[in-house]
């Protein structure tokens, strides 16, 4: 496939890796913000190509990982209703709430459907006028325009049985929170390419300046990630803190203005709770008052009621680079891939799941 294969070529990858080896002189800790990048790093084993001085920290950029326990519990409550068809992206189904996950609800008879796109959920609503169709609208800036468009189209089509359970996150406030956290070890960031495809990257300049961290807008293929690391390390070695765009084939400085327009039409910025991390000011989106009738939480009278997460999962600290999976008391015990306690154990490229896979090896270097 064009624009994929060429970024997975061994020769090119090795050249970039060699250049990183050549440039590095000291240890550096770099966070890839985005779960998609983490996925590629773990799956391709990219850490194996890096010099030992470079430590990659897996960031919080995975909506599956950061959606709060409270929202998961709301999703479970709504999906359990007999009058509801609940539509969700596949990877949300296994994320544990206070008591079970969405797959459990499905196994108990809840009508839960895996969708690829919010447009599919819209179609389900059109096809099932006697049911309430609720779409679990999770994501970052990349996904928000799709959800915004679903709201716009539902309005246009006068759908009365469609609503969204919104759990939307914004990246820049999270990066700022990580930078300003006491004890932060992160010295540079690979920013999330697809988020920037929507939002551009002007917002990162003040962060880079204020916290003195280089930020490189980075793609998702091995070559992209390694070049991102190279652009970051080169700055770190030289003491520079710029925002650079490694992923220029897909990202424009100003982002996608069409998408931003619809986004602003439908959503307001609001404070947001990140699972394991806590509330971060102005780091989320909620439906604007004009579209409040699409708010599933409101429609089904969801109370803000989940207690604190008592699972003992330390995912928040792992995603901030403060601790490692093996520091978690549940790792490999109560928490295992087939029954995850926390989100990083859910997908096979989640930080904890990746550690788990390599648990029996002397060298845990492959993650």
């Amino acid at each position, binding site marked *: 496939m064009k624009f994929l294969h060429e970024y997975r070529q061994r020769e090119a990858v090795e050249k970039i890796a060699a250049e990183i080896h050549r440039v590095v002189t000291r240890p550096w800790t770099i966070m890839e913000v985005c779960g998609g990048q983490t996925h590629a790093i773990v799956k391709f084993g990219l850490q194996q190509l890096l010099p030992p001085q470079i430590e990659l920290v897996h960031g919080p950029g995975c909506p599956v990982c950061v959606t709060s326990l409270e929202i998961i519990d709301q999703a479970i409550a709504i999906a359990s209703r007999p009058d509801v068809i609940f539509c969700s992206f596949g990877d949300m189904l296994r994320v544990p709430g206070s008591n079970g996950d969405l*797959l*459990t609800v*499905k*196994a*108990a*008879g*809840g009508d839960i459907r895996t969708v690829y796109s919010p447009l599919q959920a819209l179609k389900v609503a059109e096809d099932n006028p006697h049911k309430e169709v609720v779409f679990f609208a999770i994501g970052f800036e990349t996904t928000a325009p799709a959800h915004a468009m679903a709201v716009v189209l539902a309005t246009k089509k006068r759908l009365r049985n469609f609503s969204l359970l919104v759990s939307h996150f914004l990246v820049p406030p999270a990066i700022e929170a990580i930078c300003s956290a006491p004890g932060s070890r992160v010295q540079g960031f690979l920013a999330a390419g697809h988020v920037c495809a929507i939002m551009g990257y002007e917002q990162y300049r003040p962060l880079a300046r204020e916290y003195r961290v280089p930020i490189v807008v980075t793609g998702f293929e091995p070559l992209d990630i390694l070049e991102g690391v190279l652009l970051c390390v080169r700055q770190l070695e030289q003491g520079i803190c710029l925002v650079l765009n490694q992923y220029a084939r897909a990202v424009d400085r100003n982002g996608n203005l069409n998408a931003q327009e619809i986004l602003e039409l439908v959503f307001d910025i609001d404070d947001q709770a990140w699972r394991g991390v806590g509330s971060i000011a102005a780091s989320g989106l909620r439906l604007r008052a004009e579209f409040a009738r699409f708010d599933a939480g409101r429609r089904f009278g969801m109370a803000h009621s989940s207690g604190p997460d008592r699972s003992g999962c330390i995912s928040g600290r792992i995603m901030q680079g403060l601790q490692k999976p*093996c520091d978690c008391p549940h*790792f*490999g*015990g*109560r928490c*295992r*891939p*087939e*029954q995850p306690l926390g989100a990083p154990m859910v997908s096979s490229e989640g930080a904890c799941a990746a*550690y788990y896979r390599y*648990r*029996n090896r002397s060298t845990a270097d492959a993650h």
Partner: protein
Amino acid sequence: MHTECPIPVSADETVRLGHGSGGELSQRLLREYIYPHFDNAWTVQAHDSATLPRIGGRTVFTTDSFVVSPLFFPGGNIGELAVYGTVNDLAMSGARPLYLSCSLILEEGLPMKTLAAVMASMGRAAAATGVQLVTGDTKVVEKGKGDGLFINTAGIGSLEHVLSIAPDRIQPGDSILLSGDIGRHGMAVMARREGLEFDGPLLSDCAPLHEPVLALLEAGINVHCLRDLTRGGLATALVELAEGSRRQFSLRENDIAITEPVLGACEMLGLDPLYVANEGRFVAFVPPHQAQQALAILQKCPVSADSRAIGTVSASEAAEVILRNSIGCERLLDRLPGEQLPRIC
């Protein structure tokens, strides 16, 4: 970090789609719920098939899927049924049942406890019958695309004699033996059907039938045909055999045993016990001169202790089944078009 699994799969878990994925959950399902009740062959070979020792005699092969609802009913459950049903089909060829396969279709949401109870029951039923469960398969379907649990068993048996036991060997004059009272399984299941509930001493007759059959063969009875009475009941089985043999059967209703509770339930719902399902009854066609001896042999086995001669094969080639009833009238039995439905009239 060499961690062992400290969590026993909790008893209130339910089946999830992941249990059918072939991944880790599937492995646990097999290890914890299924292998313990099977013979080592399957577990040890850890392969998708079982290599069996050489089979003496001709091989008999059969299969049945079991879809009973509810899964547990008075006197049995789907697991036993799946073992005995296939054992019985083998026995009806005069074969010694040897090996069974077991293929499960689980519906998402099935309580693990239910699965565990059914599998344990299958294991016990196999052990009691002397067959080995040697190969299997497990699939999971989405909620609403199954009915808790379906079980398929296929069976292999060996024919250790030279008789052909088949409808075309039925002869005029043959005595028709019935191995016990009828209608119990169907009514026991119906007693637990949503909405129709009734209670009382109604137990399924669910049982393996190879023992009386092998006893007949070992005693040298020239068995012409055998048939277990399952769905469609006694009447349907006999109509099939009458057509298969192109013979006319004459039955005496007074000799067909039906217990009072079965009769009561049938009267209440307007059902005819002759068409109600059984799972531990069969008919045997034997030459008239051996009928008494055969009956004595059957009556010695607990499962067929109430065997009686219920009729004879007549000389006519009319391919029909005539019942002479309790008041001396004749009734022609035929296949029902479909299921018996409860009547109001």
